[in-house]
């Protein structure tokens, strides 16, 4: 039992605690801030750059090191990364290098400031990219650039939610952006083939879903090429499948209908 005196203390700064509960016991490890996420994503490969010290604590802030016994019993058996824990201290420390990555990878983490910041930034970018990909300027039928979308998102004070998927948020953003600028989801170009019998009836049903009907051709079957909002695709698909019992068909001609090539003004 060491005496708790200033000379015996090792003070850690910039600590990020990674915590894991196993079998009613709490195990913590002391890491550097802003490093754990990098380790988890694989960018950081040096364990020493992540860990402040190679020891497992029960409570980092109090400096209570976890008992070997607890470690081996609770943690090892569950995490099952061990080689042979009961032989000698040397081998125990060896196996510690197996425990630590385990806790690092699975434990819960207080996300640090810069980690949070970069995460939100990349999500913001990602959302903007998705929006830019999905949308066009209805006047020119050309996409907006990501930069412009980002600026527009900042203008409407959109805040990123870290726990929602970017795609979901992108759809939300599109809805909000429509209020401030000329933006529209790029239409899908579909070709519908409806058997002659149901054609008339189905067409009435489909009508509200189709934005623009580009061509219509009625010989043996009704064939239509039309532009639709991508949100309606499922609905149209379902409608045609069910109503025609598989005889009608639906084909995606292009996922997004945009102007191609450069244009000189």
């Amino acid at each position, binding site marked *: 039992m060491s005496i708790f005196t200033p000379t015996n203390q090792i003070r850690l700064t910039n600590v990020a605690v990674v915590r894991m509960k196993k079998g009613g016991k709490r195990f913590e490890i002391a890491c550097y801030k802003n490093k754990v996420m990098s380790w988890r994503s694989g960018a950081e490969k040096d364990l020493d750059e992540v860990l402040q010290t190679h020891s497992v604590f029960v409570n980092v802030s109090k400096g209570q090191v976890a008992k070997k016994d607890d470690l081996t019993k609770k943690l090892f058996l569950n995490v099952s990364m061990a080689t042979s824990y009961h032989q000698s201290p040397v081998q125990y420390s060896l196996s510690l290098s197996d425990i630590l990555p385990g806790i690092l990878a699975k434990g819960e983490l207080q996300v640090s400031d810069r980690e949070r910041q970069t995460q939100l930034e990349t999500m913001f970018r990602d959302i903007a990219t998705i929006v830019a990909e999905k949308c066009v300027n209805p006047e020119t039928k050309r996409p907006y650039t990501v930069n412009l979308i980002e600026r527009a998102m900042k203008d409407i004070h959109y805040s990123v939610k870290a726990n929602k998927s970017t795609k979901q948020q992108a759809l939300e953003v599109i809805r909000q952006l429509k209020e401030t600028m000329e933006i529209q989801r790029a239409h899908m170009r579909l070709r519908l083939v409806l058997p002659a019998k149901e054609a008339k009836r189905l067409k009435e049903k489909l009508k509200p879903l189709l934005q623009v009907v580009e061509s219509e051709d009625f010989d043996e079957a009704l064939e239509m090429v039309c532009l639709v909002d991508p949100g309606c695709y499922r609905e149209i698909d379902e409608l045609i499948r069910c109503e025609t019992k598989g005889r009608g*068909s639906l084909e995606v001609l292009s996922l997004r209908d945009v102007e191609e090539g450069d244009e*000189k003004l």
Partner: protein
Amino acid sequence: MGHTSLDKIIALQRNPANIRNLCILAHVDHGKTTLADCLVASNGIISGRLAGKLRYLDSREDEQIRGITMKSSAISLHYRNGDQEYLLNLIDSPGHVDFSSEVSTAVRLCDGAIVVVDAVEGVCPQTQVVLRQAWLENIRPVLVINKIDRLIMELKLTSQEAYTHLQKILEQVNAVTGTLFTSKVLEERAEKEKIEERESGTLSGDQVYDWSAGLEEADDSHLYFSPDQGNVVFASAIDGWGFSIQQFAHIYSQRMGIKTEVLLKTLWGDFYLNAKAKKIMKGAQAKGKKPLFVQLVLDNIWSLYDAVVTRRDKEKVEKVVTSLGVKVMARDSRHSDPKVLLSAICSQWLPVSQAVLSMVCEKLPSPLDMTAERVEKLMSVGARRFDTLPQQTQELKRAFLQCSSSENVPVIIFVSKMFAVDTKALPQNRQRPLTQEEIAQRRELAKQRHADRMAADQRAAENHKELTHSGTPQEGQPAGVTQMESLTLKDSKPAEEETFIAFARVYSGVVKKGQRVFVLGPKYDPAQALNMLPEKYSASDCVPEVPHLSCCSMESIYLLMGRELEELEEVPAGNVLGVGGLEEYVLKSATLSTSPACPPFTPLNFEATAIVRVAIEPKHPSEMPKLVRGMRLLNQADPCAEVLIQETGEHVLVTAGEVHLQRCLDDLRDRFAKIEISASKPIIPFRETVIRPPKVDMVNEELGKQHKVAIIHQVSQPQSHINTLHVDPSGLVTLTTPNRLATVSVRAIPLPQEVTRLLEISSELIRTLEQVNMSLREGKNLDISLSTVEAITELKGQLESLLQGRKWRNTVERIWAFGPRRYGPNILLNSVEGYQRPSVWQCLSRGDKVGEAGAQATVLRDFDNSIVSGFQLATLSGPMCEEPLMGVCFSIERWDIQSSAIKVEGSSETTPQAGGIASGPSQARRRPDVSSADCYGPVSGQLIAAMKEACRHAFQAQPQRLMAAMYTCEIMATAEVLGRVYGVLGKREGRVLHEEMKEGTDMFIIKAVLPVAESFGFADEIRKRTSGLASPQLVFSHWEVISSDPYWVPTTEEEYLHFGEKADSANQALKYMNAVRRRKGLYVEEKIVEHAEKQRTLSKNK
């Protein structure tokens, strides 16, 4: 000379013999605009005192701030030389490289040019350029050596030294002219030889090779500048003096009694005055005597400067002033700045305008003297020779040469540029002096107002009295105020803020206001039009159906007076004018004529092409339409700028250089769009591809022999959590859909380079092929032209010849689809055993098996399409940085849909499928699924996703590479800056392909390739580093694989030795890839903090 009235100018316009159209050309900062100022001052438009400081023709604000001219602007001046009166249409041009397009527009309209050279700096890069431009347009130059005062005041040269210095400059200028001449002669000779060769191809028996380059025969003496020829003026425009040899010859012939002709010949050159013999002798240099020029001319100027500026000797100045016979005003002589006194003396003694203008009038040709050669050159577009033009057109040449202003001559006008003018500045809208009645009316109004106010004031005063009692607010005031407002509002009216005026010249005929003319586009062909149009067709008839021809009327015509415009009723031939109301018809330049036989003039030759690209965005996204409108206007207003909308939605502005860019942005912000904008680096496209596994490692050691060092890095690639994925060591990827009903196996194979190129070139053809196939699949027969079929057959043949070898056996027949977007440079290959599907080439052989294909088509449709869709998605965005793929072949080797799928789903369904298709062992069966109740969604959708994932994994199983877009870059550079050019190219990852010397000059032409990603700021850097002596031109050429692997980490022993464990030397491909990923918000494998210990410590001191 007083202010010249408009009537006088109009009168002068009618006499083409006395018109001079000229422009001032020079390197930047050699004093063009200052010189122009002096000339303008001579007409009393500005004060002579302000000449050189005002820069009258720099009417833009940023021109004044930056102190450089940015546009060419014209002014008409009047000059009396003896008993002759002249009209000078003077065009000032910018000297900066970025605006050399403006110079082109100016040069085209002129017959002569004043080339200004700085006496200190001598011939600079732009001087060479403008001399070349003048040469190419066949206009005659005269020389002004400016800033002689700097030789005295700054360099402190003696008059003798100054003389040698001036001689050197003259030599330099003449050397440039000489090279232009030689290169032209050589070119002509080469052409002649070519023709001769063709002619004498049969009888090439005894050829005597002619060593002389033809230079000896061609006479070039008239081209050179020499003071004794009278085409050189020495000047200091800032101090307001300038002289030619003639002036001094006149003075001294009277004073010394030597004949003027003799003095003219000897005043410049190696002559000296033998005082004893009273004779002019040759060989001043050899005998160590002062040349005549120094003794008689320079010494006088030197002593004047010495007396006035350096020593400030009052008495001597008095003496000089009286001897020169000039009057100096008292306030000038008392002024503390000696320069004021100096210019007061000089501008009377040797007025620069006098010297320059008289030279111009004598030496430069009038519109009447236009050479036939120049006319032919103007009229024969491109490689067409003049004599191949139709007869009527050739007749127009006479009209040109006559430059007649009679009514029955066809009008020919050339518009060299369009410029925007504030509508308020137009003469119609300008404020003019009020007439008597108006003044009276206004006075009435004012009186009324005054009375009102008085009444109001009275009331207010009364109120005020009351106010002291009750504190109620006044009521009289508001009524008066509103009335005032309504009065001021009445005057302002809404209007278009910018009006476009065409900068043009009449070559023949008389232009009248409201006249209707043809606008001839650059591709207009008079021969074709003459056949189509009825005889005696005139522009006032209805709109004709001739390509590149339209009609318009000249709504207003103006006299250009610098920043002012004067409205005119008509302009006769040989004059420069402004035409309003053409913005709908003319984009940048055009030829206008009343005769449809007139050919369009040769396009302007621009010395600098637009190469600096930026993407422009409005600050507020909602202002996009304004930006587009503004960019359209800018495009029209600037002869050189290009604007385009790219496929990515970016609005790109292409300018000639950084200064030009700055001006364009300012124009957009303040004049055309009037919104806040931001300019940024344009998005750089990349492509992704795979290559064959390399045989050698990064240090060029063979891979096979070395044993790999154990990889100590943490394996970053997490094994796929989906256990439906299986990757074969040979690169075959097998993936099962989440509902485990369908399985696909895909392998990615790199396509040979030639195939990729072929596919890229023939993308249009493939597109039509796809369309044909699409309609065939529906059983419709689309009529395709025979030529298309031929082209497709040829493409197929080419592909077959390129795809040879064991690996590619029969591949062409098995091509399933192209991608992305169905016509890209990637191939989907059908290698499924026993799965027959109509090939993409079915349209070629449709005659024989249309029936069969039709039967299959209906069956295949659903799932076949899913696979293709998956492939299209995968090729559209690759796994490296979501950029499109290129040159990758995905071969599907196995494709099962388990029979359980059919059992579960479609018991109700029996389709006539299987028969022909599911014959092989690997049951390739497919059926439309009806129930989409599955939690994974419809099978077709799952299959798309599975196919896409499989392709991506197959791609990743091969060595991946990034492809960069490359520019070919042509650089013209002189020998002394060659090294620097190479330096800049090397720094920016450029590769020199070849260099060669241009015949007859000391210019090198270097051809190099440069990644587009490195081209931002390239033009600027290369200009800076070579002080403007090299000018690059960039054109997109091709895609090139970047050789380094973005995912590379050292693996072999040698690599460890060479790069170390981390290998943190720069990896170009990784850099590009990460930049793209970061831009798109994709995950970038990068540490947030590099060193854990080096973060800011947030602990408290304990």
